[in-house]
């Protein structure tokens, strides 16, 4: 059985996304680019959705 847990933390226009305690991406919300890591298309879509909903 495989289980995974994702979490994100936002501060000062930067969001850190983690999956299974590993950093997936450090994302600059202003410039809309990764500062660290390589986000998957799914992560990018999620970030976009959260941004549109005003949650980021």
């Amino acid at each position, binding site marked *: 059985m495989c289980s995974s847990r994702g979490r994100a*933390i936002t*501060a000062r226009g930067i969001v850190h996304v*983690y999956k299974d305690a590993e*950093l997936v991406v450090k994302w600059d919300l202003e410039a809309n*680019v990764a500062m660290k890591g390589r986000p998957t298309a799914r992560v990018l879509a999620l970030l976009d959705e959260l941004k549109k909903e005003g949650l980021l």
Partner: protein
Amino acid sequence: MKIARVKVNNRRKAFEITAGRRLYLFPYAKLEVRPAAADRVTAAYIDKELGGDAFSYRLESGAEGTVHLDHVLEYNQDPAHMRDLLLYKLTLEVQRRVARTALSRRELIRRLHTSPAQFYRLLDQTNYRKSVDQLLRLLRILDCDVDLVIRERAA
């Protein structure tokens, strides 16, 4: 760098965070979920779900908050962290200038006396293993003057 230890110091109204070989302070005033006289911090722990890169804390009311180590390093003006931020900002500026220049990438690579692979590493904003010097050389080739401005920080 990971957080090795986090300690609540209600007297100083700050968290004491040990990371690397240094001790950093992070004041409650900088928190999003702030404690008050009637709602003090009861616990702080290294957040394993965030790979030990952050710590979480709990207030008497049950409210919780999380602080990433990057935020702590930025508040404390950690030299290595500030260097990475400078590299990142410079790289974004270089990317903008490269996109705008009439010079071909081949010409930029030739004038930089480097390889295409090294050139693209310079343009990669997620690469922090390059020097500020290399970016300054590239900006110079892109007909940019880079001035060093030192100013007092706003309180």
